[in-house]
Each structure stands twice: as C-alpha cells, then as structure tokens.
C-alpha cells in the first residue's frame, strides 16, 4: 500500500501549532475535517477513539515519529494525513525523544487488512533516515506531498 492510497493531500500540515499530544491529534483531525475526509458530527468521537488508543501505549515509535491511529465506523475507506511539528511535541515516545513527524490514520473496522498494511507501510518508510530527515526539513505542505510521492516510487530505497 502506498501513501497516495490513504493520505489526504489537502489535509497535510507542514507547521503544527499544537504543543501537546491532545492538541496535535485535535489539529490533525481538524485538518482532515476541513479537507472533507471525516464528518463533522463524528469529530469528537474520532478524537476520543484516537486518544483512547494512546492510553494503551504511545504510538510514538521513536526517532521523532508517531503514528496515532484508530478504527472508526464513520469512515468508509482509509483516511490519513501527515503533519510536521518544528518544535517537536512530547508524545511519551518509547525513546523519550520529542516527536516531529506525525502520521494519523483512521480506517473502517471491517477492513482490518488495509489498516495493517497502511501501518506497515508507514513504519517501513520511516525506517529510512533520509526520508525522515527530509520530511522534518520540509517547509510547506507541497514539500511533504512531493516527498510522499517519492517514497511511493521507492526513491529512498526503502
């Protein structure tokens, strides 16, 4: 599965304002809402579900990356977005590092296979240091879009 298959390009944010975990998730779901990826009446319910998942263990997987995610019955296909925080956010990551790169994923409960493939794709691509470094340095949503496209075309050799 490729980033293009689930990342909502209009929702990408190159400069997150939020400074804490709740805020980041809220801001990213808001951008998905603005981009039409999720329904307004489900906004709070989605945020609650993502935060509930975080309670079981942070999705901060180390090296400045976090993958907050949930399943939610209100979406009929995988929706996701990418955001970058310049300052970094304390996300209770495994390695204690601040998180700069966020990949948020919401998927329909009856497609568990797609959900896992998307998570797998994200983790695999993010093992590549060059990709991570470029993402962190990106100045605009367009930069991020281009990087995701390059990753989809295996230009980072992942």
């Amino acid at each position, binding site marked *: 599965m490729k980033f293009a298959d689930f990342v909502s390009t209009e929702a990408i944010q190159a400069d997150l304002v939020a400074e804490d975990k709740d805020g980041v998730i809220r801001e990213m779901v808001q951008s998905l809402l603005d981009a039409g990826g999720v329904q307004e009446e489900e906004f709070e319910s989605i945020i609650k579900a993502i935060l*509930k998942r975080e309670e079981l263990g942070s999705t901060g997987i180390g090296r400045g990356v976090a993958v907050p*995610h949930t399943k939610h019955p209100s979406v009929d296909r995988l929706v996701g977005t990418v955001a970058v925080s310049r300052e970094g956010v304390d996300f209770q990551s495994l390695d204690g590092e601040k998180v700069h790169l966020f990949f948020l994923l919401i998927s329909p409960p009856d497609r568990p296979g797609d959900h896992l493939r998307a998570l797998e794709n994200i983790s695999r691509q993010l093992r590549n240091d060059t990709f991570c470094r470029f993402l962190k340095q990106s100045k605009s949503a367009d930069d991020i879009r281009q990087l995701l496209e390059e990753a989809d075309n295996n230009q980072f050799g992942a």
Partner: protein
Amino acid sequence: MRVVVLGAGTVGASVAEMLCQHGHSVTVVDHNPGVARRVNDELDVRAVSGSAAQSSVLFQAGVMDSDLCLALTGSDEGNMIAASIAKAMGARRAVARVYAPVFRDLSTFDYQRHLKIDRLLSLEHLSAMELARKIREPGSLAIESFAHGNLEMQELAVAKATAAVGVPLRELKLPKAVRVGSILRGGKLMIADAGEKVMVGDRVTLIGAREDIDDVKSRFDVETPQKRGIVIAGGGETGYHLARVLEGPRFAIVLIEADRGRCDFLASHLKQTTVVHCDVQRRADLEEERVGSADVFVACTGDDENNIMACVEARELGAKKTAALVGRPDYANVVGKLGIDETVSPREVVARQVLGFLNTGPVIFRNALLWGGGIEILEVEVVAGAPVTEHVLANVDLPPQCLVAAVIHESYVRVPGADDRLKPGDTAIVFAGDESVDGALALFQTNGRAS
C-alpha cells in the same frame, strides 16, 4: 447444555461448579493432573488433564459438540489461542478471559475478530462495573459489558414538571443517539414507545453515550445530586476501571495505590481522579487521606484480607459506606458480620456472565434488566435471512414492549433510528418485556428459510 471449561483455578473451578448446579454437562481441562483429579473427585464433572491449547486435549474434552467453551486459565495468550481453536473445532460459542486491556482494544489489531472468538471477558473490568453499579445511585447501571464502554444506561427520577414532561417522546426531538428504554411508573416497568409521555414521578432509563444522556437529563431538569466523595483503595485493573467509569461531575474520587510507578500511570490516565501514593494497610495513611469523611470507601486491592481490613478501618474512621472486592467464598459470612456494606466477588460476577452465554439460536447473551424484573436485555446475532433484516426498523413487526436499543457493528455501537436497517453480522441489543421475548426472538430466527 455441554460446556467445556479450560483451567480449573479459582475462577474455572467455581464456574464449573456453578454450571453443574444448573444441571449442565461440564468437562474441565487443567494442565495440572493433580488439580484435574481433585476437580474430578469434588465436582460432578469430567476432568481432562493436559494443555488447553492442544487440539488433542480439546478433542478429548469434547469441544466439537459443545455449546460453550470457556477459556479461564491464568494466561491471556493461552486463553485466546485455546478459545480460538475450540471455536474452529466446532464449539458453538467460545469465550476467553483476558486481563490486559490491550486485547480488548481493536484500534491497532482486532484480536477477537482475528481469532474468531465470541467474547473476550475481563474479570477485572466486570468486577469494576459491578462495584460501580453498587456505588452509584440505586438503579443506575452501566451496560458497558455489552458495548465496549461506548454505551451507558442511566436511570433518572423525574421530580417536577418541565417543558419535556407530558409530551409524547416522538415530539421531544431528543438527540438521535439516545433512546428512552423503560419507564417505571407506579411500580410497573414498561418499555416506552414513541407515543409514550414521561410523567412526574416516573423513573426513566436512558440509553446512549454518556454526554448525550447528560444532555437529555437536563431537559427533564434533574437536579444534580450532591457530589459524593469516593475513596478507592487499590489501583490495579479493577480500581483503575472503577475510577474511570465513575469519573464525572457526580463523584470526587481519590485513588490510593502503594506502588509509585503505578501511581504515575494512574495519574496520567485518570484526569479527574486524585491519585495518592500511600499504603492502605497503614491506619495513619487512611486518616491522612481523610477516608473518614468519604461517602463510599471501596477496597479493591488484589488481596481479600487487606480489602476486608481496610474496609473495617475505614468504617471505624467514619466512612459512610464501605465496599470490598472479596474473592474467597469462605469469607462471605464473616464480611457481613464485620459491617462491610457491599461485597463483589469476581467469581460470582463471571458466573453470572457465563450463564448469560448459555442460550440457543442467535441469542448470544441474555439477562434480566437488573432491578425489578419484567424486562429482559437480549444480545442477539443478526443472521442472514432473519425477518428482522427485511425492513427498516420502523417497518419491522416488533411485538409490543420491545425495543432495539442498540446495534453493534464491527464492535462499534450506535443507537438505531426508525430508518435504520439491521444487517447480517450486526449484533442487536434488544429490550423486551417478559411476554414479548419469544415474539422478539422469532424475528431473529430463520427457521430454515433460505438466506
């Protein structure tokens, strides 16, 4: 019915005994031959010794034509594997006991679905729900066990005439996600239909998400009861779930935990609870935390004796009501004599759940609405070809005194509206008056019709 119980520990053995008393045919599996032999001698069951996760052992125990297989060993992973294999081998229903909350969360991975198990039960969660039910105002209960915590049922007493009183429910424009379940009026419990009016003096149950329920409550101008002080001793899984479900405007909660690391976890996960690091076995600590002024003191550490002692101390210090988690049946007698008001036994809680799973046809679980009687809560599988799937709910010929209160689709719960249609694979939560149960269930049965 035929039941296979995997694991003859405290929980497994007591469930097996209870099932025997109810006249079911029980086979118990335990990896320890000595334990299996003892169970065989003491109870009227067949005992098999061996690993519950091995197909040969399960075969010997007869899971193939069992109505229910209960995996109740002390190992989460072992239980899940065993239940999954039992189901694949032909057990009609398979239930696994798990401790770790992560197994009941599906945001990253759906264990229950992947393993094709009918239910993952957490004893600690169930015990917490039972304690919560006893602590809340009488009659108010959470039905979290049905709905993964997404749905709640609450009772409200209508004390005075507001704009919403005396108006037919269909005209009230209540939030879509809340249903009025039952109304208790003049000692009679009934299920409310859309034409029903709520009257002063009624006790009304509401079903829905907690926030939506609060919204509806305000329409009936229910006075917020005075905030009650709850002290919970023991921040294990049970104490944690208990604090979580009680958090809200009605309770001021103090949670006492002796382990420093666990305190950090609790403090970061319970936003509205005061977490205190101290030892419940020390009277000075209890005094310091003002246990004496608590409305309710709950002891739910993992140790019966400590729970009983802590409650006795708390009562002496002045706590108005005490409740303890007590596992050993031998203590039941003495607990009352010591003046402990409420006890919850995880074994009894799980036993009640287990009985609910012994059903025929599409019924997964059934239970009486906990107070008064007269109404049953049924959790029913929606199968292809069942009459109930043929129309939107408004056009389904439900018997009187019957309500489809909630629909669970892929583990997500919603309160259905009149134009919702049940789909095969859904699970429906149905409220039905005693006389309507059979009629309601007929709608969920195919009776051999082509699907």
